[in-house]
């Protein structure tokens, strides 16, 4: 029998030792997405405005953030700005992930808003609604629904990208795996544990988004 250099029985044994790290991963992801959604909605709407005072900053934000790596953005926030403001590592990770995702979510919202037929806005205006009312009551509810599938995709990317917070010393799953790997000399085993954690979390997230999609779908056809 071949003697493998790995001890896979360590996987179930050490698995519970990653709970706290997984919780941190979930926290960064959750609050990062929350910040991203708010930033995304605001900049998505600004991006659609005809007023250059509104759309130019939005375009610049999306251009810069999508055009540079998240890892660099995290380092700028945590290490780079240290002389200006000292941000703790957790808030820095959340802010970084939020700002990064905001740019992508802005584009998702913009696409979804633009995909709502022109006639919807026209019908709303023809009833005497203001542009704001038409947006809030008629266009946004339809756009939100259409943005659910791409948002689900973005949330999964965000969850996995939260592993980059390890680079600014947040003891989330990946950093925990590296530390445990070094101390136990079982690097592959520890990395596989976090692999399982990520897979479990993305699977649950996927199922959740599928559920939401289904729920929203039926709401239009309910008799």
């Amino acid at each position, binding site marked *: 029998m071949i003697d493998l250099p790995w001890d896979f029985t360590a996987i179930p044994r050490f698995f519970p030792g990653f709970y706290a790290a997984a919780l941190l991963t979930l926290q960064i992801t959750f609050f990062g997405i929350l910040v991203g959604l708010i930033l995304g909605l605001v900049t998505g709407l600004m991006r659609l405005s005809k007023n250059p005072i509104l759309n130019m900053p939005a375009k610049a934000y999306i251009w810069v953030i999508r055009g540079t790596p998240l890892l660099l953005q995290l380092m700028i926030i945590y290490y780079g700005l240290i002389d200006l403001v000292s941000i703790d590592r957790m808030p820095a990770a959340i802010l970084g992930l939020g700002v990064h995702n905001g740019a992508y979510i802005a584009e998702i919202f913009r696409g979804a808003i633009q995909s709502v037929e022109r006639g919807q806005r026209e*019908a709303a*205006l*023809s009833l005497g609604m203001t542009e704001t009312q038409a947006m809030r*009551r008629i266009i946004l509810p*339809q756009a939100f629904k259409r943005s659910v599938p791409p948002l689900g995709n973005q949330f999964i990317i965000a969850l996995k990208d939260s592993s980059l917070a390890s680079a600014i010393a947040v003891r989330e799953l990946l950093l925990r795996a590296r530390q445990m790997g070094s101390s136990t000399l079982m690097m592959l085993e520890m990395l596989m544990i976090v692999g399982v954690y990520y897979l479990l979390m993305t699977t649950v997230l996927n199922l959740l988004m599928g559920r939401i999609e289904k729920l929203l779908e039926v709401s239009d056809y309910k008799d």
Partner: protein
Amino acid sequence: MIKIRGLNKWFGDLHVLKDIDMDVSPKEVVVVIGASGSGKSTLLRCLNFLEFAQKGHIYIDGVEANAKSRNLHTVRADVGMVFQHFNLFPHRTVMGNVIEGLTQVKKTPYKEAVEHGEDLLRKVGLSDKAYVYPAMLSGGQKQRVAIARALAMKPKIMLFDEPTSALDPELVGEVLQVMKNLAIEGMTMMVVSHEMGFAREVGDRVVYMDEGRIIEEGPPSEIYSNPKNERTKAFLGQIL
């Protein structure tokens, strides 16, 4: 009710409305005909300020309105519009569609709005569909909901932009019937449509447009049986 003077509209280099002068009296039913691209839909959309003319004047009930008017939305509330593709709100029930303008624009209390909505749905023969979503309706039913939705605002005039041209032939009749009833009740209407039967039965005037101009207008019997202009003749020859 509506007075249009020297209206000109361009889409880029394309001159789509050329020196349009037109009046619509209260309770009058005007049917606008013309080939696609003749500017008839654009004219209608200018009257509801979904498009803005670059030159000329539009007076609704004696008050001039244009792109710079501050209360454009209140002007629009007085002008009902029915679209070719219905444009119902898919995320609202039939009742939700009908009372949207009432609750949001007129700030009518919900209960009162629903009562009014029930009356309107009865009028268009769709009382049994009040709490169904638009996706469950046929094209003819959708268009009747759209008419009820516009009527809810108690508009001074109703504009119909090819209301039956997206419908299967067997569904055209039910929509025209609702429109006829409206005309009989004395609603001022401007209808872009090639439905000759409708124009003959309830139309007071037919306006023929070509290449952005009003070429000929007159009572339906005259326009359809005895057109004077060569272009009107050629056009009617094609559609009849």
